[in-house]
């Protein structure tokens, strides 16, 4: 007589163990526990249930008369059988690894879900730095593992989903130079790994070092993020519904002064967008003309900028159907994410559908296919940087304090003429509501990726696997500027179509065989075919005839561009692993790649790696406080190629000639077409870039696993960097493609897990991730003093200098030998000096601390994320100060300012400054202009409360009778980016970065949209 038996499986810390297999001993019947460890099985009193899960000691329980069976499984302490997914999707025992791998369960990522899965890795992994670019919905996030090692291009790791390396580009498109106002390049269209649906993820393995990624070859020189997706589990079918609703508001707004109106030197002027006008309280007896031409008494609107923003919302809903038996499994997942931004008219929508199924045809042969579709559409992506009339940051923050936002909202368009009512006729005078209601950048992306895996076992110790995968997307981007927008009065638009296709095939043969007593050999050989193809066509249209008709036929001039590129890699690879008595492991890999992008003579390159791991607690008499100990070491050498077509001299067709402000002429001009020699001197003899690295580490567990410690030291040297070296332009070229320079990264990673309290009902867990990376440019060709990695604006540059970390350079204050700022005795302004190093680009260390408290069904977790060091340049701060909007500009308005500093005397001595700047306006406007880089440089350190989550899991016993179909309900309240506990920069969130993840550049904020704080709730229901 079988009947329902329910229960929950937890580990010794009372943490539910997901997906434990529960079999009725001696039969084929069985089920899998849920993600929350809950199970239900039909069994008879005499049956014995076998609970088993990888890494845990199996347990048998006789059913007897019990209807609820709660089981605690004990971790296998002597032989830790934890497994992680490594390169090529190979599952390996953690203890056999000679390098550090951190794996995060999908569940962990789905606590306080992020639309961009990359963001949810922030603070959770040692040595992994995640930077969101902006507050853009669907915006990009940059991920850097163990420091930036390349001078050129992206330092992004490869993303691999079920063996398929997917595209994680964030292609920038620039309007044709000289054809239209530039600046579209600074619209953040996201990074393509952000398309991944977090709900489909079973686990994420982060492979940090070259040894870990050696099997992937060149593509993984910056590490690998290996994602395994969920599959249907053997057992009863289930349906999971996961629903999150969140509300977003602006995390940090500038602090504005509220005392002064617009104007110059205390005189009201409606045309000026600033705070340099009269003191509002002094002129209450007078009337002034506002932007509508009305007479009014001046009044400050302290919340006018806050009132511009709205409460954004995010809905993430997903449902999945899964099930399977011994012969087949199936999972179908659908997910919908809908976001509305804090800036009106910004939205992001993503629908994704995934199907994963496998079938065992015979003991020798099985097959699996996995396909995911994503449809993404976004509207109102903001423009950052300069020179584009649609930049909101600049327009918004300069709106005078006396302007009522509601009045702007109600009056952005003249109802009679249909023309804009600007805030002022100046360059930044657009009414922000004109911009958000008429102009904007939108995108539509459709993507399919998937793969098919065939496994064949001719004999029981050999497995032949072929994994073929394809990742295709098409993206359409459009940006429109309506006629009458200041800065582009005749209107215009840009449309671009981007198409990308990645094809990958891996064939591997694995042999596993004991070759002697206590010694097992595992060998793998494989071949890889890889192709990446990208195509873009784009049209930039100017001067529209009919208002708001964005058709090329409606434009007086259209400049078109097209571009395509193809790259192929062939690789063969092998791995050999010796396992001695399961405590000593030796592993060696080798891979040879042939890349289409290198000169024929240099296109083949080989890279080896060796690693070893030794579980010393297996062979020693260990003290009672030490539960487990392992040491590991590894060395690897990796090569890498470059983008296609860099190795030959080509004449480039030109669609326009350059002239500042974007109005150079387009070709054909006066009847002539045009070509130019390349701006980059080609690299006829390009060699592969080379990275040598080693790593040592130890894993220790104490006090019955109550304390886990994992320490890693690594060092990598990346030489023969493939760079576009800035050359003197007088040579006729701007850059030279060559191999040059060596970047060294070394550092420590420490992961510490502590369980300070553990009772039968209550557990407190602390997980800390600490990392410290030291980057040094160890070699640079003699001919150059520094290498420019990225250019900012005015004088700002991001550069590499020999013996130093990458840093920010620009105009600095001239200082006397004691470090005092030198003041110009003629006018009282600070004296500037060109080209000074102003700080390290990257943080010196990072720490993430995650606390989890569990009490019965309750779970509370919070994550604190700390970054120490690094530098940030903020143009927003510059603009707030020079325009007299920032709170600090309200002081001293009535008196001359004698700046702190020194004057140089005629005999070259320095004496304290006595020269006053006559007006506060001149003081701020001259000293803090954006071209004075140092004036706008800040320490980028922060302490942030990154995420908080409280959840409650309803006990299974609550669901009986008609509700017994419910297998679990979990309710949660969650928040992300809740609080900047500490920072050193006024007015903006220190976590801002203008550059997309396709460049090395960061540390520059340029009129970005403020980041958001989200709070919401989540329901997870399993049927």
């Amino acid at each position, binding site marked *: 007589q079988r009947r329902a038996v329910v229960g929950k499986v937890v580990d010794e810390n009372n943490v539910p163990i997901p997906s434990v297999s529960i079999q009725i001993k001696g039969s084929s019947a069985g089920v899998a526990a849920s993600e929350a460890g809950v199970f239900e099985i039909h069994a008879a009193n005499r049956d014995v249930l076998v609970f088993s899960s990888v890494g845990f000691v199996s347990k048998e329980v006789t059913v007897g008369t019990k209807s609820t069976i709660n089981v605690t499984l004990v971790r296998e302490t002597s032989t830790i059988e934890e497994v992680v997914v490594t390169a090529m999707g190979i599952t390996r025992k953690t203890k056999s690894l000679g390098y550090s791998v951190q794996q995060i369960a999908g569940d962990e990522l789905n606590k306080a879900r992020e639309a961009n899965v990359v963001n949810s890795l922030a603070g959770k992994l040692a040595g992994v730095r995640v930077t969101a670019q902006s507050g853009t919905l669907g915006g990009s996030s940059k991920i850097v593992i163990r420091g930036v090692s390349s001078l050129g291009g992206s330092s992004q790791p490869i993303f691999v989903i079920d063996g398929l390396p997917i595209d994680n580009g964030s292609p920038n498109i620039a309007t044709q130079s*000289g054809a239209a106002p530039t600046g579209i390049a600074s619209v953040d269209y996201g990074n393509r790994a952000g398309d991944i649906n977090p709900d489909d993820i079973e686990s994420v393995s982060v492979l940090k070092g070259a040894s870990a990624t050696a099997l992937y070859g060149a593509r993984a020189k910056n590490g690998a993020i290996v994602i395994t997706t969920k599959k249907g589990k053997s057992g009863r079918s289930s349906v999971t519904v996961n629903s999150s609703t969140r509300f977003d508001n602006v995390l940090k707004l500038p602090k504005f002064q509220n005392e002064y109106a617009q104007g*110059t030197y205390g005189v009201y002027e409606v*045309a*000026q967008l*600033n705070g340099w006008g009269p003191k509002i309280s002094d002129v209450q007896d007078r009337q002034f003309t506002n932007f509508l031409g009305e007479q009014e008494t001046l009044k400050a609107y302290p919340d006018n900028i806050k009132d511009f923003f709205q409460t954004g919302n995010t809905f993430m809903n997903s449902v999945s159907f899964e099930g399977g038996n011994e012969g087949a499994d199936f999972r179908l997942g659908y997910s919908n994410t809908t976001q509305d931004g804090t800036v009106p008219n910004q939205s992001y929508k993503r629908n994704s559908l995934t199907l994963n199924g496998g079938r065992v045809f015979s003991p020798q042969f099985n097959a699996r296919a996995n396909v995911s579709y994503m449809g993404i559409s976004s509207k109102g992506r903001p423009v950052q940087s300069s020179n584009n009339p649609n930049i909101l940051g600049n327009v918004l923050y300069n709106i005078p304090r006396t302007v009522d936002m509601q009045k702007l909202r109600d009056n952005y368009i003249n109802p009679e003429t249909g023309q804009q009512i600007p805030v002022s006729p*100046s*360059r930044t*005078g657009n009414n922000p509501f004109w911009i958000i209601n008429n102009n904007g950048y939108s995108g539509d992306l459709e993507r399919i990726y998937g793969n098919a895996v065939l496994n064949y076992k001719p004999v029981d110790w050999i497995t032949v696997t072929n994994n073929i995968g394809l990742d295709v997307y098409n993206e359409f981007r459009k940006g429109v500027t309506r006629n009458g927008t*200041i*800065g582009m*009065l005749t209107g215009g638009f840009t449309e671009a179509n981007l198409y990308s296709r990645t094809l990958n095939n891996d064939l591997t043969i694995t042999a596993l065989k004991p070759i002697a007593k206590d010694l097992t050999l595992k060998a793998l050989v494989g071949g890889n075919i890889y192709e990446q193809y990208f195509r873009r066509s784009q049209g930039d249209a*100017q001067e529209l005839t009919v208002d708001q008709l964005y058709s090329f036929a409606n434009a007086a*001039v259209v400049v078109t561009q097209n571009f*395509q590129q193809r*790259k*192929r890699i*062939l690789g063969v690879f092998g791995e050999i692993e010796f396992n001695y008595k399961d405590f000593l492991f030796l592993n060696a890999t080798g891979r040879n790649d*042939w890349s*289409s992008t290198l000169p024929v003579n240099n296109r083949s390159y080989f890279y080896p790696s060796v690693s070893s791991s030794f579980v010393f607690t297996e062979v020693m008499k260990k003290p009672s406080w030490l539960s487990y100990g392992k040491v590991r070491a590894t060395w690897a050498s990796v090569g890498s190629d470059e983008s*296609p077509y860099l190795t*030959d001299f*080509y*004449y480039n*067709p030109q669609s326009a*000639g350059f*002239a*500042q*402000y974007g*109005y*150079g*002429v*387009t*070709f054909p*001009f*006066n009847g*002539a077409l*045009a*070509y*130019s*020699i390349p701006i980059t001197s080609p690299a006829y003899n390009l060699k592969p870039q080379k990275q040598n690295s080693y790593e040592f580490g130890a894993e220790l567990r104490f006090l019955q696993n109550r304390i886990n410690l994992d320490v890693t030291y690594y060092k990598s040297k990346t030489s023969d960097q493939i760079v576009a*070296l*800035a*050359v*003197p*332009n*007088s040579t*006729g*070229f701007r850059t*030279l493609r060559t191999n040059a320079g060596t970047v060294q990264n070394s550092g420590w990673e420490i992961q510490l897990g502590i369980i300070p309290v553990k009772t039968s009902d209550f557990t407190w867990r602390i997980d800390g991730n600490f990392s410290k990376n030291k980057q040094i440019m160890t070699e640079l060709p*003699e*001919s*150059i003093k520094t290498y*420019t990695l990225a250019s900012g604006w005015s*004088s700002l*540059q991001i550069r590499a200098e020999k013996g130093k970390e990458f840093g920010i350079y620009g105009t600095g204050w001239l200082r006397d030998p004691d470090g005092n700022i030198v003041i110009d005795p*003629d006018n009282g302004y600070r004296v500037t000096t*060109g*080209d000074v190093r102003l700080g390290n680009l990257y943080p010196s260390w990072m720490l993430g601390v995650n606390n989890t408290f569990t009490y019965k069904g309750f779970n509370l977790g919070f994550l604190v994320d700390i970054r120490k060091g690094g530098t940030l340049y903020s143009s927003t701060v510059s603009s707030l100060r*020079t325009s007299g909007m920032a709170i600090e500009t309200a002081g001293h308005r009535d008196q001359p300012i004698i700046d702190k500093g020194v004057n140089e005397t005629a005999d070259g001595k320095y004496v304290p400054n006595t020269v006053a700047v006559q007006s506060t306006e001149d003081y701020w406007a001259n000293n803090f202009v954006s*071209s004075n880089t140092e004036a706008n440089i800040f320490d980028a350190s922060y302490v942030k409360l990154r995420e908080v989550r409280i959840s409650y899991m309803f006990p299974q016993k609550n669901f009986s009778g008609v509700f017994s179909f419910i297998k679990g309900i979990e309710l949660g309240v969650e928040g992300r980016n809740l609080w900047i506990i500490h920072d050193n920069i006024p007015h903006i969130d220190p976590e801002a970065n203008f550059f997309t993840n396709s460049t090395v550049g960061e540390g520059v904020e340029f009129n970005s949209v403020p980041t958001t704080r989200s709070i919401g709730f989540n329901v997870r229901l399993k049927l």
Partner: protein
Amino acid sequence: CKKFLDVNEDPNNAKAIDAKLLFSFATTSYVNNRAGGDLYIPMALGGQSVAGGGNSTLGISWGTRSEDAYVFSAFSYGNIWTQFYTSVGANLRDIIDKANTYTPKNNNGVAQAKVLLAQTVYDLTTIYGDIPYKEAFNFNLYPSPHFDPQKDVLDSVVALVDQALVLFDEDNETKFTGSYDMFYGGDISKWIKAAKSIKLRALLTMVDKEPARAAAIGTLITDGGLISAAADNMKVSFATTAGKRNPKYAINLQYNGGREFFYGSPYVVDFMNANADPRLPRFFDRPTGQTAYVGIEPGANANDAVHAKLAKTIHVADQPEFVFTYQEALFYQAEVYARGLGVSVNMARADELYKAAITQSCIFWGVAAADAANFAAARPSLTSMTAADAIAAIHYQHWVDKMDRGIDAFTEWRRSGPEGSETPALRPPSVVGGTNLFRRFQYPGSSEILANPNAPEISLFNVKMWFDL
């Protein structure tokens, strides 16, 4: 496998092309940048032949300080250097260096490229001072070119023109012609006149510092063959169609609703007012209701109800970019005779040329021929003045004629006398406070100095260069 990997042939670019395509790009880039925001605006405003209107929101400064208050952008320094060396110079040098690969040999094409290169290098050195030339455009041999003294650069400009004059052959039909020669449509006789005129300008730029160049000037004047009619003017036309317009017009159109951004400089306006110059309404538009033309001091805040702006008829869409004009050739010749450079001083001849130059200038600017002649005739005769006054009168008229030509006006002013005695006597903008006058562009950091170990120190924008006494 080999075939699978042989896909590195760029489908977006060409391995071989007709050299005329490089010449059209070099030409376009050259005039685009001369008329564009990086050279025209800082040179016209910094050189004070045009005013920006200070913080006026309707002026080019858009409510913040800009070039008329000596706020120069590092972008301008960098872009002009980069554009003139890479987009213009390097393409011309590619034509010259690979000349032997053409069949039939295109000597005229090489000469055309050499003249334009000479003019580009002349502009580069008058903008920046000492610059790389001898080791420039030759990356394989000279990855870090040395900077040549300005004297050597200007001598090289003369030498390039001389080489071109040897190569030009009016009977040879192989040349850059038609739409690919945007200056003269393949008229080699006009190229020869332009080449000689450019040579004269370079020599006159040197002669104050290097009096020995007077002999060559004398020879050029005596031999003749300079630009001798408005039809010979060296210029590139822009068009009224969108995307083909003069950048000066396009900036006004896109950023100011077609309103003019630039104001009259008092150094021009006051001088013309004093003479009741018939070119005044051609140069400037008075605000409605104003009876007089009023200039605004560079850097000071303009008032649109009071101050005159450059005439709408100047910054029109199809305003050509002029590199050398007939009246300019006349002003130079007047100066040569007034100063006796390689010829005997001949003030009567100078006066004749001076008045012809003024007449041509008036006609150029749209004054009726008869009015132009009357106005010129009414100018006090140079023969009635001291030599110094006569020379200054030529310089002032010459400078006024070049008001809208940015770098050309600026160089003419710097050339007009030693420091403190230039014509006109400019003063630093009063909003700036104690500083010296604008004298040059600073060397650009990223596009040259930082990458070139052989680069000299950066000279500030208010430090004079070699030719500027």
